């Protein structure tokens, strides 16, 4: 056969990958419809009277082996609920990561505290005890660690540091259902764990969240916060403090009850697929497969490559463009594009009216977002390429992605 001219190398037909934004990449089906029908037929759609949300809470607490689990309306609401349980005063500081979703940050401001951003390890995009330590001040009221992309933060040194200062730790496990460290699920390693049931998570109700804890005091405050701080069941109930209605509906609760038994399978499939891809990418110059610490399990909310711009022409952005143009694979270079503190809400302190509250109560150090304090963040964002990941990927899908990355790297290597 005659070799094809170089310019006419045919593109393979694009393979459609299962997508977590529609039914191709979700585990929603007959089980959810059955329980949802039951919820609707019962005529009770509020969780204060219904059984599904209560069942979800009980089953999730059992699954994680924690004393208390409460459902709420979103992953952002879960973080807000956890922060409210700590009850910061105006201007108090809550240490958090510079690479995270705004929903995990706005809740801090709504509770009148200010985030104190910690840098991340550019290899995992996670905060570490070393990046948190310089952020601790007498005004630190809590530390929020985010197990980004489903990969656990190193909790032992973080907890030792936090305990030495008597500071509670909130785990944002929105992307990390059933990720474990030394066999224990994330979300149960700190004081409070927060989970998300948003559309793209391991299991979903469209929007939805869960908070867990072993601490009875924090549990009580979180339960109240979700419920307008109304003391249901008390002898003389009242609205004890300022709190929203963050309740999950029975509609979400029914779907979640059907989703929860599928979680372990989803996690196992994502891990198996990720391990296959990692094996196929080993040794490829210029791209590093996801790293996780020994003793941890990564649950692959996304599959992130570290792309070396010195080797790959155009770096992560160049690789993403190639994958989209040549293989129809939509990936996200730079993840959230810029560090959270570069968003207008922080850079311009846009909050309540023209008050700038609670930034008005912050220490100047907490508002120092100088780039030199965040080398890991900038390096991490520059190098990260977020590949979509899904439990429905077959061997063929993974082969397709592996071939695409190999060919892209070959084409783009300087």
């Amino acid at each position, binding site marked *: 056969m005659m070799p094809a001219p170089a310019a006419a190398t045919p593109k393979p037909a694009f393979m459609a990958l299962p997508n977590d934004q529609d039914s191709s990449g979700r585990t929603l089906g007959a089980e959810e419809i059955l329980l949802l029908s039951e919820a609707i037929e019962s005529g009770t759609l509020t969780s204060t009277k219904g059984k599904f949300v209560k069942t979800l809470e009980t089953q999730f607490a059992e699954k994680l082996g924690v004393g208390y689990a409460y459902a709420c309306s979103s992953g952002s609401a879960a973080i807000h609920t956890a922060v409210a*349980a*700590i*009850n910061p005063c105006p201007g108090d500081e809550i240490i958090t990561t510079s690479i995270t979703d705004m929903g995990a940050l706005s809740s801090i401001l709504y509770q009148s505290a200010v985030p104190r951003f910690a840098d991340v390890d550019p290899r995992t995009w996670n905060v570490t005890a070393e990046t948190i330590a310089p952020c601790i001040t*007498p005004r630190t*009221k*809590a530390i929020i660690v985010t197990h980004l992309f489903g990969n656990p933060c190193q909790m032992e040194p973080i907890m030792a540091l936090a*305990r*030495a*200062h*008597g*500071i*509670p730790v909130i785990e944002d496990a929105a992307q990390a259902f059933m990720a474990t460290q030394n066999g224990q699920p994330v979300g149960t390693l700190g*004081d409070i764990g927060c989970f998300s049931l948003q559309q793209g998570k391991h299991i979903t109700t469209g929007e939805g969240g869960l908070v867990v804890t072993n*601490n*009875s*005091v*924090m549990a009580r*405050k979180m339960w109240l916060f979700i419920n307008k701080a109304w003391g249901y069941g008390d002898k003389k109930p009242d609205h004890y403090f300022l709190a929203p209605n963050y309740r999950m509906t029975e509609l979400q609760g029914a779907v979640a009850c059907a989703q929860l038994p599928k979680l372990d399978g989803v996690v196992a499939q994502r891990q198996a697929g990720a391990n296959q891809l990692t094996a196929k990418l080993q040794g490829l110059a210029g791209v590093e497969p996801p790293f996780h610490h020994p003793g941890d399990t990564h649950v692959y909310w996304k599959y992130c490559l570290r792309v070396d711009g010195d080797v790959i022409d155009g770096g992560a952005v160049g690789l993403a463009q190639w994958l989209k143009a040549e293989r129809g694979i939509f990936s996200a270079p730079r993840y959230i594009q810029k560090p959270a503190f570069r968003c207008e809400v922080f850079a311009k302190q846009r909050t309540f009216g023209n008050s700038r509250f609670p930034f008005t109560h912050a220490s100047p150090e907490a508002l120092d977002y100088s780039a030199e304090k965040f080398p890991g963040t900038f390096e991490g964002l520059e190098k990260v390429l977020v590949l979509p990941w899904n439990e429905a990927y077959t061997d063929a899908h993974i082969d397709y992605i592996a071939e695409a990355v190999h060919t892209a790297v070959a084409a783009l290597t300087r």
Partner: protein
Amino acid sequence: MATEPVKFGLVGAGGIAQAYAQAFAQSAIAQLVGVADLRPEAAAAMAESLGCQSFTDHEAMAEALELDAVIICTPPVTHRAIGTYFLERQVHVLCEKPLSISSEDARAMRAVAEEAGVILTMASKFRYVEDVIKAKSIVESGLLGDIVLFENAFTARVDMTQRWNSDPAISGGGVLIDNGTHSLDIMRYFLGPLAEVQVVEGKRIQGLMVEDTVRIFAKNQSGIIGNIDLSWSINKELDYYIRIYGSQGTISVGWKESKYRQAASSEWIVFGQGYSKVQAFGSQIENFSRAIRGEEALLITADDGVASVAAVEAAYRALYQSRWTAIAPVGVAELAAA
């Protein structure tokens, strides 16, 4: 930003005033400009060491100097008259504890301060101790679970036979008002508004007209109990002065170090380096000065001062009647919580 320091007068040049003198020496925003004491030699000696003017009565000092604030370090029975005098002249007042010997006096002082639009605060040094502030943060965070029991002790062998503190006409009582003011203020700081109190007196050792050893039992509005031991005649030899027990841990605030232990852990974690009188007095003056300048919230409000007097007053009623006695709520927060 160059701002003038807050100009202070000191009323009373006794023992406690010496502690303030040290704090002024280290402060950048609080400046001592005058000392008044009925004993001319005491006023002069202190003024000389601090490089400021001395007066033999507070009114002369008020007339001669443009004071922003005063610290009242005279015996309790004089607090209302002296405090009111300065508040009416729109001078901010930091008054040594107890704010007054009756809650009627304390409420009257608070009313004058509100009318004049100036700050009235009560000295309660332990609230400014870094370890105490950190301990409060740990308790509030919930790391120790539900709080069940508060313990405090201020005990030391001190001869009170020759001191005004044991003359009830001057001091308002014995060890209960002298140290109990601190104790009940700290308990309220940690646990919120107090609801009721019971007091048992111990054997009088020093032949005083007043009690020299008492045990206080108090409850906050949610039913958390506290034990407080006060004595001028014994020393309990404890290395801590506050201990708080929760369902999930214990915290201990000590003279040389402070630590906590969670129930699930076998380890005590040290979080503080102990009590420093100089630090506490310094922080108190700094906070008062910054509050005057509108830069910080005042840590101890007039309501806190009134609450502490009301608690001590209830404690004396409990002591005399030997029964649990309600503590009157004093402010919006306590009425709301009641």
